[in-house]
């Protein structure tokens, strides 16, 4: 079968993760923040898959399954929260929602 250098896979996952991170830090719109989180989760999942593939064990994929479940749950609740915020503050700007501070 094909043989891809392991680190390339990880590098890919790494770049995707970092891109998600940039999105998280840059965007003020909460939806984009949530989207970047999705990217990061997906990148992490990818890293698991690469590792699973390298060892030839299904564990990587099972881990990805759990990540999928978690990510689905997270999105559901996240979006619910976004709706509430939007309803209360009429805006999606992350900075207005900053009551919780020192």
């Amino acid at each position: 079968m094909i043989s891809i250098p392991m680190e390339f896979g990880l590098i890919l996952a790494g770049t995707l993760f970092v891109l998600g991170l940039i999105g998280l830090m840059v965007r003020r719109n909460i939806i984009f923040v949530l989207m970047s989180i999705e990217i990061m989760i997906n990148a992490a999942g990818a890293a698991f898959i690469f590792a699973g593939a390298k060892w030839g064990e299904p564990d990587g994929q099972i881990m990805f399954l759990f990540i999928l479940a978690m990510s689905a749950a997270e999105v559901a609740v996240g979006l619910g929260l976004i709706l509430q915020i939007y309803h209360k503050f009429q805006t999606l700007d992350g900075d207005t929602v900053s009551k919780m501070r020192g």
Partner: protein
Amino acid sequence: MLELLWLIPALPFAGFLILALFGSRLSRQSAAVIGVGSVGLSAILTLGIAIRFISSPPADHAFSQMLWQWISVDAFQPAITLYLDALSLVFIFVITFVGFFIHLYSSLFMYEEEGYSRFFAYMNLFVGSMLTLVLGNNLLLLYLGWEGVGLCSYLLIGFWYKDSENGYAARKAFVVTRVGDTAMAIGLFLLFTSFGTLDIQKLLQQAPQEWTINSTQAVLAAALLLGGAVGKSAQLPLQTWLPDAMAGPTPVSALIHAATMVTAGVYLIARTHVLFTLAPAVQTAVAVVGALTLLMAGFTALTQRDIKRVLAYSTISQIGYMFLGLGVGAWSAAVFHFMTHAFFKALLFLGAGVIIFVLHHEHDMFKMGGLRKKLPVTFWTFLIGSASLAALPLITAGFYSKDMILWYTFAGEQGNDWLWAAGLAGAFITSIYTFRMVFVTFYGEAQAEITHKPGMQLKVPLIVLAVFSLIAGFIELPHTLGHLTLFSHFMHSALPPTEVLHESVSLELLLQVIAAIAVLLGIYIAYHIFIRNRSIANNLTASGPGALLHRFWYSGWGFDKVYDTLFVNPLVWFAKINRNDFIDLIYTGIAGTSREFHRQLTRTQTGRLRWYATGIVIGAIITITVVVYL
């Protein structure tokens, strides 16, 4: 009879306790009876014991009576024991005798004052502590009396507590004497560490064996004791408090600041004379201090206007004579002068008291005058006292005692001519200011009206003390006048005799004549200036240098100003600058910095999501670098 010795100090203390506890409930009459009675009883007791002591002296002329063991820790075993020998007998005789008359006098003098029983309580406490001082056989008991006397002088000077001036004078007296007491306390520590005991008699035996002449320890111990004596007897460095102490009632000045307390220093040096003979340097220092003080006080007395301050400075000067006597080793002469001085100075103070009492608290001499006819008894007794103070030759007691000191200063083993010259000059000035005082107050036209005639209780003490001021001198006659040495013979049991270098009667006669001339000259000058034409005195002080000198002498040679600028003001300023303790800033500082640190930290929590994300990333970077690369 001697067993009743403990009663002598006990009676005044008992008087004090009764008056202090039940004073407010007692009537003035009963308070006076208790106050005067207690001192009277101990006076009679002293008389009895004196007769018993002189007629059949106990073993080696001393009798000690132990009351109880005060403290006993390791080697430090001071006990409350009373020790009676010739020296302490003379002192307790004078204290109780003069004390009784002064109490009698003040029973009427203080009659209208409020706090009558409080006054007698303090006076009894004073007499009690002075007797303990004189009778104490170990230096610690002496120190107890010493501080007790200091306390009573504080209480009595500040008796009229309403006006804070008196309070200030009282505190000044207590603090200045306390400086002397601290020096003496350190002397006590030194003596105890070297000899392991504070018992005076044991000290005097062990000192010559263990210490060599002029060894550092001996000099140090003697100097420290001298410091204590100087403080209490208002000698040169620490004499500023006595003139201000005149703020107290006049009987107080008579008893404390003339007869008894101020001579405590003389008693201390006489009592511990062996230490001073062991340190000749310090002994001459005593003489020099005495000489300088008598000159300084004499000149200052010349310029004073307040009758009590004149007497105060004359007291300092006369005690200077006693110190001079002690310095040259004329122990019994000094004690003799103490006795005579106690009589005539108490007389002068009481006389001044009558004048002030009669002219309702007028102190300034130049506002009096012409009292000769109005107060005959006071005038004559005052005149006798002044004559004795000025040492009018042959008839007054002052002459015999002062002359004895001058003779030993000149001829004595440690005497020297400069000191004698100073003594002579002192005698000359004394006669001037004494008779200036007499002529100004009693002669000239009357300026103030007399309110009321003095009662019997005021006159009796004056008369008795005047008699004593005259006859007291005859118990000790110099070679030239019959050589009767009753007093010095009596004193030899306690104090060593003074050797005289060249024993020649003619020389003694010559010195006496010189002294007599000096005194008479002084009287004439006083007469000339203050009776015949007052203008000389005024224009003397009006001109430039004369005014300057006058002001300089008037302020007590500027000692007060010097002490204020050197000690009092800096210390008060130093105390005031950090009123609330800069060390506190350290702790409030710690608290402050921690609060500030907290405030900075809270500012990092902005509540914005993106800021937290960045925080996480920074954290991640740091941990990764640390883990992977370091």
